[in-house]
């Protein structure tokens, strides 16, 4: 249930971004979430709707993109998708790898009217 805390931080960043733009209304907020963050989109949407009710953001919605876990092997340098959280190179079997994506948790952009 940390989605409530995350929704609160999203709203804080939106309000901070929109502070000097009082005339426009927020429509969509594009949020990027790495698979490794264990943030559930349904719970985040629910929390966002509940927290923005009867506020200036009540007509806005989150557009959530889930970013899959990608890694690169440090031995054979091949990039690969981490399947079912197995952090082992499927080409050479080494577990010495660099994570390329999967830990993201950020707001990319805001669409306004």
């Amino acid at each position, binding site marked *: *249930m*940390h989605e409530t*805390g*995350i929704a609160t*931080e*999203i709203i*804080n*960043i939106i309000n901070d*971004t929109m502070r000097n*733009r009082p005339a*426009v209304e927020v*429509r*969509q907020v594009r*949020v990027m979430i790495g698979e*490794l*963050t*264990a*943030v559930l989109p349904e719970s985040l949407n629910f929390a966002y709707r509940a927290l923005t009710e009867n506020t200036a953001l009540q007509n806005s919605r989150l557009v959530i993109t889930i970013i899959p876990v990608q890694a690169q092997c440090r031995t054979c340098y091949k990039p690969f998708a981490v399947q079912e*959280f*197995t*952090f*082992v190179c499927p080409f050479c079997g080494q*577990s*010495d790898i660099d994570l390329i994506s999967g830990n993201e*948790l*950020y*707001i*990319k*952009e*805001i*669409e*306004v*009217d």
Partner: protein
Amino acid sequence: MPVITVERKILEKNDQLATQNRQLFAEKHITVFNLLSSPGSGKTTLLEKLLPMLAESRCGVVEGDLQTDRDAQRIAALNVPVVQIVTNGGCHLDAGLVRDALTNLDLDTIRLLFIENVGNLVCPAGYDLGEQKKIVIISTTEGDDKPLKYTTMFRAARVCIINKMDLLPWTDFNIETVKRNALQINPDLQFFTVSAKTGTGMQELSAWFKSQLYK
């Protein structure tokens, strides 16, 4: 529709506060561990047994709980400086809560600080508190497939303590299976197998904590 580029981390505020905490700990030469587990895996009992063994390391404890200061009372009974954070239902500690709690500890007298997080294997994983290492604790009365179910936590942790080894003969928990599952998620994970109740493995664990102190 016009688009405003934001490109800001959602937990940026927490990360900033965690960085401040980390700077403070470094200035004061305090080694800090963030202890994470399910409810009931024996975090507080582990600390109760460990703290007297680490008396020379001048420990302090930050206790995080949903409700009550019962855990802090158990630590205070050992004459170890402790401060309780009651989250009132909040499922994890964040860097701001820890920063506020630190004002109630005399950091000049502490070399080793344990932050006992709220019992929860999901939410606390994403919140940096400024610790050096996250330690995940799992007990033999839980499932040995837990690392596969709580990947984020086992990925974030640097050390895994397997507790309640005294109960192993009465459970289906397999040490090799849990280690294999955890290493699949995090190949660098370091393990300790202990029983806080009987003391098995506790000497090795306390020696490791001592080795982590600032020289």
